[in-house]
């Protein structure tokens, strides 16, 4: 992150300026990579930052593009940088008012998988958070309906975690046809 050079070459994006003014203590890191602003935000203030990004009239990140997570357990550099938090919950936002794209990343430790749900801000977050729960086991607090979405209800485990084998744990060969509620 070569911040001095960035400042010289082009003006700082408005979103960074405003966040530094209002939520500077929430930011763990910031970056500008390939046309997108990247923010790493402390978990306890993630909701406040996202709410600010959405409701500020100048920024107006009203469109939640995506919510997902990354399991960093095999990515040593990321682990070291953020206090060995295994998961990184990633929000992509887009502003229809010309502020471009912003990516908000929130480190989540394995021993405390809770994070505040943003379903109150964007209706579209509902299924995205359900999918992240299904695939990674992140527990979104305040979510109205946190169930599995892609895997069957009686499935055990979280397939996109790095310790889950690609070919599964035998679930695709053995079936209990009576138990499944079709």
């Amino acid at each position, binding site marked *: 992150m070569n911040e001095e050079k960035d400042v010289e070459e082009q003006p700082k994006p408005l979103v960074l300026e405003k966040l530094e003014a209002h939520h500077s203590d929430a930011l763990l890191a910031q970056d500008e*990579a*390939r046309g*997108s602003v*990247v923010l790493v935000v402390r978990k306890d203030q993630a909701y406040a930052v996202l709410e600010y990004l959405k409701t500020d009239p100048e920024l107006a990140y*009203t*469109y*939640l*593009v*995506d919510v*997902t997570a*990354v*399991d960093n357990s*095999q*990515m040593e*550099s990321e682990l070291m940088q953020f206090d060995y938090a295994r998961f990184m919950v*990633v929000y*992509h936002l887009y502003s*229809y008012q010309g502020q471009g*794209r912003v*990516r908000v990343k929130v480190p989540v430790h394995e021993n405390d998988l809770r994070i505040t749900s943003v379903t109150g801000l*964007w*209706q*579209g977050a*509902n*299924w*995205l958070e359900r*999918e992240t729960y299904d*695939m990674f086991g992140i527990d979104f607090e305040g979510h109205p309906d946190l169930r*599995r*979405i*892609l*895997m*069957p209800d009686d499935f055990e485990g979280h*397939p*996109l975690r790095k310790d*889950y084998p*690609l070919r599964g744990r035998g679930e695709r060969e053995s079936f209990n046809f009576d138990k499944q509620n079709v």
Partner: protein
Amino acid sequence: MQGGLERATGEKMILSFGPQHPATHGTLRIVLELDGESVLKAIPHAGYLHTGFEKLGEHLDYNQYIVVTDRMNYLSPLSNNFGYVLAVEQLLGVEVTKRCQYIRILMAELSRLADHLLWLGTAALDLGAFSVFLYSFREREKLYSIFEKTTGARLTTSYTRVGGVLRDLYDGCEEDVRQFVTNFPKALKETHTLLTKNRIWMDRTKGVGAISADDAIGYGLTGPCLRATGIAHDIRKAEPYSSYEEVTFDVPVGTNGDAYDRYLVRMEEMIQSCGIVTQVLDNMPDGPVNLEDNKVTMPNKPDAYGHIEGLIHHFKIVMDGHGVQPPMGEHYCATESPNGELGFYIVSDGSGTAYRIRIRPPSFFHFQALPHMLEGGMVSDTVAVLGSLNVIAGELDR
């Protein structure tokens, strides 16, 4: 809407709609709570076609994964191929040649036509207009033959490569495509005469499944479904990629955000795509198709067979643990696929395999917004609304 909630009698019925139902085009499932004919509550269920694309991306190298992208939105595989390699190239920090960019636009727009045509055929079929299905497939077969001559496959094209495309356009491609885009608007007119002012079609789609612009943004709707609500947002215009800024086209918008507007927007988009295709053919630059960067693209066959350097470069690209290796980092790249914003979020750890690939599919958001459009309506509207959204299970469930 007649019926309505005020006429509720307390007698409720639960109807499981799908996963095997002619209007679900595969594997969608909606559980409806009905009072007579009116829908009180609708709960869509996803996941019946979950295939593990994202997990697979962590085990295949960057060029192998192109094969998997074909099978996401299988109505328009070329658009998926395009969106994916664009993300990898931006992560690598390379830009393909001008001719390659134009070929990709050409193919993406033709596949947009193919996608909208199949949508048109099946949406009309669901509402009982069988001849539209046959008319659409007649045109789609012409596109299939162009795709097949270009890529070698009708449906699963795998046409793009990181740093280029599989091969240049075939001799006579320009004539074939020009002939198609000249005749296509006439063929589309037939459908217009069948549907656009058809009393039954209008009754079944006008005012059905409407969503406001604010709700559409809140639910993350993109593509024709967003534009039908009146928001003229198109990623090809807002964040042009791959030389889209060099072609001119209009972004059609609707006003009511209902099924009829979605139909009209898609119909007009097909005409605009024909215009883009013509411009691309008129201005198609000459020159090489693939990047001449030995770390990204394969050398020519004569080179690989005739020179030791060529042979080494060839091996380095295809060998496990070598090949295309983007630097450590992450990137999100969005393209305007026929259905809306198709995004690829790739995290690279510097090796030849992605550390994490996340696909942001447009259909996921459209299907999620379905209850908002259905509740309070009639049960027969379910088919019309679902048809107008064009939810593709392959990209919904991945």
